[in-house]
């Protein structure tokens, strides 16, 4: 069991920052998902934790011990590679036993340990085969078995499901989660799939452009995104972000609607009186369609989902995006049993609990002041 601590860890390739200085503490037994778009430095971060990549700056601690300059083999970590990295010349059995044999473990104990993980992952029928003859899912199971068998202090997984097809990802996702719950080993899990991160992570580290954007529980990054990037990146579709002007206790939204701010936010927004521009953010489910709703727009498209309808609403009342960045289409959830005609007018209110405000300049969320 292990606690991993990163202090101002950074990596530069030549002049390029692959990872800008970041701080992160991963607690014992925690499952942390490293989430971000392609090229944002997730893999590099994971490789630095593992010791496969040397840090440019900063220090790494595992269980309080400075491991910054220890090699991967000295860190007691397991790494599951995106493309499995099984040893092609060895049978599945030999692959799984390899880390144990490397430690010089006794044959009887090796056999017992291998038997344990083989049972756990249900791969008994594959033992005599070689990796090239396995399907993607089976390769993934074997790769997991090879990393589990050593009972390492922590697991690092680099998009372990990235090479699998959609159907199988779901199965393996559940399997990894189950293994984590059974073993309670500290796990860092890299993915660019936010659904995966939300479903699996105890906490999510959202990265973009080599920088950590936010660290928080799935609920936190979903409901309280730290900035516009996280708001947009998490959720599908992402959070609706509508620019507007703050006037009195109202926000004049782009497109013409006037949105009265929730009373709880007024002191906070008033404190920013010298700045009147603001971005209003809300999730699709924060919208409540009603005849008297403050925000109005025109139905631009509507998608039927099993239990609800997702309405695309054009706030500036135009049915075409006008291409100059002035149009504002928001997504709102509506009841599935009401039929919305495209081009018809729709009005909605926002659940005051679920509205967020962002500073357009810094792109950061505005924190609500709590006044006693």
């Amino acid at each position, binding site marked *: 069991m292990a606690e991993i601590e990163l202090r101002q860890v950074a990596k530069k390739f030549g002049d390029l920052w692959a990872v800008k200085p970041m701080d992160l503490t991963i607690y014992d037994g925690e499952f942390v998902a490293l989430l971000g778009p392609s090229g944002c430095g997730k893999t590099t971060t994971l490789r630095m934790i593992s010791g496969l990549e040397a840090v440019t700056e900063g220090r790494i601690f595992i269980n309080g011990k400075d491991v910054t300059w220890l090699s*991967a*083999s000295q860190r007691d970590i397991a*790494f599951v*590679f995106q493309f499995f*990295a099984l*040893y092609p010349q060895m049978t599945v059995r030999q692959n799984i036993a*390899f*880390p144990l044999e*490397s430690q010089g473990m006794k044959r009887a104990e090796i056999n017992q340990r291998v038997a344990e993980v083989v049972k756990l992952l249900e791969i008994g029928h594959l033992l005599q085969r070689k990796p090239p003859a396995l399907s993607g899912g089976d390769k993934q199971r074997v790769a997991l078995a090879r990393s589990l068998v050593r009972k390492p202090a922590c697991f690092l997984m680099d998009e372990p499901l990235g090479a699998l097809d959609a159907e199988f990802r779901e199965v393996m996702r559940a399997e990894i989660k189950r293994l984590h719950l059974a073993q309670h080993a500290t796990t860092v899990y890299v993915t660019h799939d936010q659904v995966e991160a939300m479903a699996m992570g105890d906490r999510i580290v959202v990265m973009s452009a080599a920088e950590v954007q936010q660290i928080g529980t799935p609920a936190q990054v979903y409901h309280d995104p730290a900035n516009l990037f996280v708001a947009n990146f998490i959720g599908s579709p992402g959070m609706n972000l509508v620019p507007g002007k703050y006037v009195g206790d109202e926000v004049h939204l782009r497109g013409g609607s006037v949105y009265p701010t929730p009373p709880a936010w007024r002191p906070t927004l008033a404190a920013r009186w010298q700045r009147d521009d603001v971005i209003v953010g809300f999730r699709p489910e924060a919208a409540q369609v009603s005849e008297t709703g403050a925000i109005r727009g025109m139905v631009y498209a509507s998608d039927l989902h099993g239990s609800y309808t997702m309405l695309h609403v054009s706030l500036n009342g135009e049915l075409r995006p006008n291409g100059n960045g002035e149009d504002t289409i928001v997504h709102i959830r509506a009841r599935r049993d009401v039929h919305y005609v495209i081009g018809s007018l729709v009005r909605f209110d926002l659940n005051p609990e679920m509205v967020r405000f962002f500073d357009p300049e810094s792109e950061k969320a505005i924190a609500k002041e709590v006044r006693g």
Partner: protein
Amino acid sequence: MTTSEAVAGGEPLRIKARRQINDRAIQQLFIMPTLVLLILWNVFPLFYSLFLSFTQYSHSGKAPPVWIGTGNFDALLNDPKIWAAFAVTGRYALLSVLSQTLIGFGLALLLRAKFKANGLLTTLILIPMMLSPVIVGMFWRLIFNPLMGIFNYMIGFWNPTTAPIWLKDHALISVVIVDVWMWSPFVMLLCLSGLKAIPDYIYEAAEIDRASPWRQFWRITLPHVAPLLLLAVLFRTIEAFKAFDLVMGLTGGGPGNVTETVSVALYRMVFQGQARTGMASALAYVVLIVIIAVSNVYIWYLNKMKEA
């Protein structure tokens, strides 16, 4: 005239027919010369020499071949000089192939590392392989020369009167040294391509799995390179059994018959005084059979390795 008709395109059907004939004709035109050459230079001599091996015949005499059944083979297998030649060939093949394999593989392991002059160094090392064996033999004779050759100085013998006379005292070893010098790069080249094909992540996985460098070599590097290494060994073994040009260039089979490989014995049998063409054909077939046998052992092993 006909072409202009075709271009005019009055009769598409006829054009099509003619084009089909042309295609086939072109195909045959390409194949025929090769086929003719192959038959003249390979197939005919192959069968003619097989016929000769069962006859008493001398190409320098006027007498036609006389069928003597397996007489030539009986004589060969009872001739201690031929057995000696096979023993020399075997020793030579074993020593040179073993050394080449070790040195070539070693060089490949060194050159796999990424460093600045890597490409240049690889090219330089490959040069001996590209030279003509006869020329190599000639200049190594100079290098081995006890009076002015550089070899003795390089290995530390500064006094020509006490230094070994390589081509006389250690003639077979000398030929092995030159062959190794010339052909280790070939083994290296094959091994290098095998090594470069091993993806980095396999080693990263082994590092994560805490395998020592020694273990990584035995369990990952060697199994990956083994098929290519075996192929290199196969090629070099066949070549070693046919060793001729280098030996002729260096020692001519001497002193005495110390470096008389089977091929050299064969050459002497035909072209140095005796002109026993029938007997030599028989010997050539014995060599062929030995080489096929040895190759099959390797190939069987190679296949087994692929299955496993």
